[in-house]
């Protein structure tokens, strides 16, 4: 029977959607042999108890370990990894989301436990057998973890629907921090340009722009259309590198991997590093003035045209 521990991610007192998605991945593992799922919340102050409640409401979770400590006001891998490693003895599996947070913390924990990590689990084939992408998604492979070895894995969040949240049903257990927290790493600040629209990682609709927008002023076009549709804004790397939009909007291999119901992209060529970020989108709409742009190979609906004409026309017709 597998015993699975999920590392909760949270911010501003809210459990991140990535946590509920990781619980779904855990549930797919648990299904294979009636395993159980625990979630561990590391947080500072009063937020810890509230977060534990949120985690306890996720369907499929048996127990929530609530670990409160002042050092957890900001999640530092150097603090969290040894805590996870200290808990590892009780579990067959340790999972975290494949967000920047999970990618930062979990490999550090895996090394302390003494195992390799399975990165970006997109499907569960068995208790210790998974599917994951390699080469920016150009290959999908089966990864098996040998018997007796702790499974440490990140769940590719775009591949998993969020576990439902219902009544608080899991037991909540307070635990003490067990590990030493080295003083060699100091959190200084977070700089977020965060707009007021929906979150790119979880939005149902995403409107994205590429290099073709040619300036941050022009990107307003994308922002306006997004606002009209209640969508989040995304961008290609080229648009981010050119400084048209902040880095957190980048979609792709090294940005966010997303799975909105509708992805509309304007002036994006469709490089593989971009496509790997949207391959789980429901419907992909592409507007590009080059009829041969590779984006049209994956688009469900394509329109060859100039975005500077198409976006205003769309806005008018969707009003």
């Amino acid at each position, binding site marked *: 029977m597998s015993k699975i521990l999920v590392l909760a991610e949270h911010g501003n007192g809210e459990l991140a959607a990535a946590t509920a998605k990781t619980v779904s991945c855990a549930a797919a593992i648990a299904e294979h042999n009636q395993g159980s799922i625990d979630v561990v919340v590391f947080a500072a102050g009063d937020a810890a108890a509230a977060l534990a409640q949120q985690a306890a409401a996720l369907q499929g979770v048996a127990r929530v370990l609530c670990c409160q400590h002042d050092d957890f006001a900001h999640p*530092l*891998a*150097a603090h969290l*990894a040894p805590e996870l490693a200290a808990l590892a003895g009780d579990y067959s599996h340790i999972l975290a989301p494949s967000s*920047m*947070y999970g*990618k*930062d913390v*979990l*490999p*550090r*924990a*895996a*090394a*302390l436990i003494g*195992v*390799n990590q*399975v*990165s970006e689990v997109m499907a569960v084939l068995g208790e210790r057998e998974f599917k994951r*992408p*390699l*080469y*920016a998604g*150009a*290959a*999908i*492979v*089966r*990864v*098996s973890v*040998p018997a007796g070895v702790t499974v440490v894995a990140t769940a590719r969040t775009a591949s998993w629907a969020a576990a439902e949240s219902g009544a608080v049903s899991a037991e909540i257990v307070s635990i003490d921090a067990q590990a030493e927290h*080295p003083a*060699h*790493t*100091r*959190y*200084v*600040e*977070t*700089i*977020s*340009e965060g707009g007021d629209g929906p979150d790119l990682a979880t939005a149902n*609709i995403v409107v994205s722009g590429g290099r073709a927008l040619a300036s941050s002023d022009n990107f307003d076009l994308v922002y306006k259309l997004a606002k009209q*549709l209640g969508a989040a804004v995304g961008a290609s790397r080229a648009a981010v*590198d050119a400084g048209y939009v902040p880095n*957190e909007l980048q979609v792709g*291999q090294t940005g966010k991997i997303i799975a909105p119901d*509708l992805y509309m992209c304007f002036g994006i060529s469709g490089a*593989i590093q971009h496509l790997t970020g949207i391959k789980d989108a429901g*419907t*992909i*709409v592409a507007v590009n003035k080059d009829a041969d742009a590779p984006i*049209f190979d*994956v688009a*469900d*609906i*394509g*329109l060859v045209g100039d975005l500077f004409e*198409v976006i205003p026309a769309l806005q008018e017709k*969707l009003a």
Partner: protein
Amino acid sequence: MKILVLVKRVIDYNVRVRVKSDASGVETDGVKMSINPFDEIALEEALRLREAGHAEEVLVVSMGSEACQQQLRTALAMGADRAIHLATDDALQPLSAARVIKALIEREQPGIVLLGKQAIDNDNNQTGQMLAALWQRPQATNAAKVELADGSVRVTREVDDGLEVLELQLPAVITTDLRLNTPRFVKLPDIMKAKKKPLDVLAITELQADIDADAEQALQISDWQAPPKRGGGIKVDSVDALVAELKSRGLV
């Protein structure tokens, strides 16, 4: 201070990677190989730190078969002072790679180890974090800015909700993101000069990194498949038709 930079030999990022028809891996015959793009950025950052007077030596290291000496030569041509090829015919998984580098660190005593945030072949994104754990030193992944002070380094990291700034005591491990810098081009005379720079070869067994036990728990990778193709897309010829299509699918 010495800066150690890891460079991995990978299929060039411009190559359209194809899975072999027998599902045993990807096609590598006649395929262009390069330095992992994130590692090139790591090297560029190290060179800039040296040029700014923060470091005396930039040491580049690659683990793999003899072929990775090509990438080390390129790294020397870019401006690294010295190279070490840690020779092995096995594809090291991140934990073993981290153990080997940890053993090398004990010999070389670098102040900073710079790695790519991920190798674009296996997309693991693990080695730097594992190294920091084994070395019991601070880590800053996804660096977008690196500022050195006396005995510490301030790193601005790309995170999901923007940028996060950390201050690390040295020695430290830093992994690079794409926006940290734009690597310089290698000029022909530099390639000639690089031929005279030291490139030492060391079998990884000589480092006594204690990786034998890792073999039993190494992840097994099999059944290589091309991803399912998205197909059946349509083209529309006007904004009106696009809007009609979106409406008929209930998307707007």
